[in-house]
């Protein structure tokens, strides 16, 4: 087993990996950009190495600096988390050369599945159902126009190196194609350093169902059932759950076996996720392999009892899977809400600023994977995910109730977050009924606004504000807050006395 691991990431996922390492008796090395000196992952790791300026391209995406940090600290392996270099096959290959273990798939498989276009070709050959679309990246923009016409609008622009909704655009008409391609390319370039985009037929209102897989270095492959991630905004998941309401045991088994087939066809090892779209008629199509630990991995951990980060590290260290498919079962129901720094009333615009106060929800079956703390400033440079709230309960209804209670018990003061929006999502009758698809937010939450607040709570809030104005200040000093008006004004009691009226 490794003695020391470097985590080439930040935020909640770096914290998650550090925790797993601690439990396994492995020392950790954090890396950080200039604006992340005070970030939680830096405080938690055994060692921390600065790797450059705030823009990711000069720090968290800078392979030279990260490899130098691993060398300098003697880390034997690097965990890439998700995003940044997690699915960069050049990085994996360089580490292989440097004899540093990449905690993820081998570089050949990573290159294959990371190239969404080649992955489509391979899967089609292996007999896996794929979405109709382009099977190569064209050189000329006119080729996109031809392909889009052939597929029929609406079409989807996707980044070949993509993930997390970056570079993704729905295009409904020919006029939108060119600007969509330009924006998609720029986003892809800045997120992945690769501007290749391609087109796929847009499947209307599908469910997003993905299967977690684990494969060791000896050909043993298991799937850990599905997660449904249909609740998305800006093509990015915000609520995930397991099991999916759309699968019955037969379909689950069939999709699970297909997921394993995908893994084998790609020569894939370590943890990964095989994403499918499930259409209204329960046809499923291979979407892509996410060759990394997923944001929503805790949902699977709750339902299967398997610690996926620990498994990743064990597999990377050359250990065999200690269980087989028949040892795995799904228990109960898990839900995850992603907590973003964003304003749901302003088209989910990212918000930044200082978290003045954080109160984490707690309780049985509640897990809070968190990368922030009271007093921390949210930088503008990175993905605005702050934390994830995950709950588990015996069944879906109980899990929804538990999630609502936990969200009610969750305060992040000082910046806009998605918490109250998420409450309304989980409480929505269509969500409660399990009728979800990727159009859910658009269909039910266009122009969402926060509900009318309760007068009772407002009264308490005002009383608290008044009390606070009287009693507290930065150092316990009395500060004047609110507009205080003495109820008995001296001007009222002085009788006939007027300013400037000397007698």
């Amino acid at each position, binding site marked *: 087993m490794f003695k020391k691991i470097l985590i080439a990431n930040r935020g909640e996922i770096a914290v998650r990996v550090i925790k797993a390492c601690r439990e396994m008796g492995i020392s950790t090395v954090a890396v950080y950009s200039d604006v992340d000196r005070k970030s939680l992952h830096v405080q938690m790791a055994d060692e921390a190495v600065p790797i450059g300026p705030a823009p990711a391209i000069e720090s968290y995406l800078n392979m030279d600096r990260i490899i130098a940090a691993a060398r300098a600290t003697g880390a034997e392996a690097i965990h890439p988390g998700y995003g940044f270099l997690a699915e960069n096959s050049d990085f994996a290959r360089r580490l292989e050369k440097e004899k540093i273990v990449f905690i993820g798939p081998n570089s050949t498989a990573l290159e294959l599945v990371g190239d969404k276009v080649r992955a489509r070709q391979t899967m089609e050959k292996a007999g896996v159902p794929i979405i109709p679309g382009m099977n190569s990246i064209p050189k000329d923009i006119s080729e996109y126009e031809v392909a889009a016409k052939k597929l029929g609008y609406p079409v989807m622009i996707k980044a070949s190196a993509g993930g997390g909704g970056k570079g993704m655009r729905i295009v409904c008409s020919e006029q939108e194609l060119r600007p969509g391609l330009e924006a998609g390319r720029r986003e892809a370039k800045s997120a992945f350093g690769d501007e290749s985009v391609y087109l796929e037929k847009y499947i209307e209102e599908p469910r997003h169902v993905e299967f977690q897989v684990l494969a060791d270095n000896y050909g043993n492959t298991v799937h850990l059932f599905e997660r449904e991630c249909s609740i998305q905004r800006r093509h990015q998941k915000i609520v995930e759950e397991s099991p999916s309401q759309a699968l019955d045991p037969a379909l689950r088994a069939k999709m699970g076996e297909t997921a394993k087939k995908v893994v084998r066809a790609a020569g894939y090892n370590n943890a990964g996720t095989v994403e499918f779209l499930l259409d209204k008629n329960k046809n499923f199509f291979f979407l892509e392999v996410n060759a990394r630990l997923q944001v929503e991995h805790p949902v699977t951990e709750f339902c299967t009892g398997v610690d996926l980060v620990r498994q990743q590290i064990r597999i990377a260290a050359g250990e065999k899977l200690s269980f087989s498919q028949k040892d795995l079962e799904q228990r109960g129901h898990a839900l995850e809400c992603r907590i973003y720094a964003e304003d749901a009333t302003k088209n989910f615009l*990212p918000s930044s600023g200082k978290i003045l106060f954080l109160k984490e929800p707690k309780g049985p079956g509640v897990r809070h994977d968190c990368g922030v703390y009271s007093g921390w400033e949210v930088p503008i440079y990175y993905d605005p995910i702050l934390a994830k709230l995950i709950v588990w309960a015996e069944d879906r209804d109980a899990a929804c109730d538990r999630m609502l209670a936990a969200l009610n018990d969750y305060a992040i003061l000082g910046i806009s977050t998605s918490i109250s929006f998420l409450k309304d999502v989980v409480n929505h009758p269509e969500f409660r009924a399990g009728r979800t698809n990727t159009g859910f937010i658009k269909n039910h939450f266009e122009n969402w606004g926060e509900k009318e607040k309760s007068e009772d709570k407002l009264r308490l809030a005002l*009383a608290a504000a008044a009390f606070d104005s009287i009693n507290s200040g930065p150092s316990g000093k009395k500060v004047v807050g609110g507009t*205080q008006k003495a109820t008995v004004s001296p001007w009222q009691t002085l009788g006939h006395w007027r300013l400037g009226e000397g007698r």
Partner: protein
Amino acid sequence: MEFEFLVDKELRKIVLEKKEGGYCIAYGENQVTADIQSISPHVLSLMIDGRSYLVYIARDKEKKYIFIDGQQFIVQEPGRETKSFHAGEEKAQEGKLLITAPMPGKVIKIHVVEQQEVRKNQTLAIVEAMKMENDIKSSVEGFVKKIFVSVGELVDSEKPLIELETKK
């Protein structure tokens, strides 16, 4: 003492008087007695009729962020609210319109030039924040009067980006 606060742009009045056994809270028609205890710098307990309400509170300049049982209130002192318009909105004045940055970020594209005619909903510029591109659109039909920023520039929230003149 009577206090005035702004909550969601509405002025609210509340009276808080210290008396034996706690505070008398008068709000509108209602009057209750509460024992208020400070539990920590960010937490208050208001005991009213045998029930403790936990209130979380954080302060930032003229604002207080208050959280009670799943609801958040931003309570401001009147008269001290920010004079500037809200981020991302426009300030219309005599046919002129100032388009501001909706959040801190980086200008990655400017689609228009000065004097150019623009349609309603036309994308004027793109500001990137947290790896997402955000289209800055024109809310009116008119002309580009002035461009205050250039591509690559880092902008703060509420920074003026473009001034438009509306079509008469």
